[in-house]
């Protein structure tokens, strides 16, 4: 085999692997759903502070959909426990919004925002 090709194959493979492993970070910053999710979480916080519970619940449902479509892409740049914890937080937040528990809702949301920040950085 040509020496150039013999060296090119492993180098290209390693570059491809690096791109796959870091694809999550790139996608989470550039996927429309990921950007919308950041905005949704901020809006959700404002609505909870202003006691707009029904609006907050609608936004949470949207956030849940956005999270479902985004989470697949960030598997490589994240860990399973972080993704599962996010799913748990979304369920907890749903309950907190239903019971209109402001303190609990805000604390869960803060955790969610912090984790989301970790996932995309």
């Amino acid at each position, binding site marked *: 085999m040509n020496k150039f090709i013999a060296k090119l194959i*492993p180098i290209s*493979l*390693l570059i491809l692997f690096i791109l796959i*492993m*870091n694809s999550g970070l790139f996608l989470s910053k550039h996927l429309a759903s990921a950007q919308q999710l950041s905005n949704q979480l901020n809006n959700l916080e404002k609505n909870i502070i202003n006691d707009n519970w029904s609006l907050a619940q609608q936004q949470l449902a949207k956030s849940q959909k956005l999270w479902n479509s985004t989470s697949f892409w960030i*598997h490589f740049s994240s*860990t399973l426990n972080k993704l599962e914890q996010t799913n748990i937080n979304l369920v907890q937040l749903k309950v907190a919004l239903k019971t209109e528990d402001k303190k609990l809702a805000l604390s869960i949301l803060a955790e969610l925002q912090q984790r989301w920040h970790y996932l995309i950085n």
Partner: protein
Amino acid sequence: MEQSLIIIVRSIIGFFTLLIFTRVLGKQQVSQLTYFDYILGITIGSMAGILTTDLNSRVWLVWLGIATWVALSLLMKSITLKSRKASKYIDGEATIVIMNGKIMEHNLRQMSFRATDLLEMLRVKGIFNPSHVEFALLETNGKLSVLRKSQYRKVTPNDLQLNTDYEGLSIELIYDGIIISQNLKQVNLDQNWLKNKLEQADIYEISKVFLATLDTSGTLYIDTKEDTVQIPIEIRDYS
């Protein structure tokens, strides 16, 4: 399903990364590995295992860990290749454990080596009496190199002042029914010569040959795919 897919992709990354990195690290035989090389192999292997199956670890960070270990190992290798002093310091050096038939107990203790281990290694080499040994050295890879006393060494043609013919490597001319043309060219022969030789052995189709090699004395070894040898003993111990 999602997680299965992730595991498959991570496995592909881990497998080929390990393959490429081990090729980069060199062709050292397992038996020639120093103790540190051995540990290095285990560490890199275990990191590759984590990379593949531990979904609670960030794949990129684990991969970066493996790459760093490999890079450090290459750095150490290049330092030890260039500097003899560094090589001695990092890899250690061979230790004399028997000199003129006498066991060097102090050196054995320093290497945390028992006399029984030494005797066992001598026996493996066919030496049952340490007094037959002129020098025995414990190499950095943990192997024992032994120089027997001249009166206990095997006689070689050189000792008897006999002339011997040159013996080099045999070259493969046919493998699994396919002629290896570049090897034929290398020995300045052509396919007609090969076909003639095969016909002399009553073989008229190249596809029937499993292996044909040419040694340095010009003798062609031919093994056909069909084995005609009568097996005198049943090789299998089950039926």
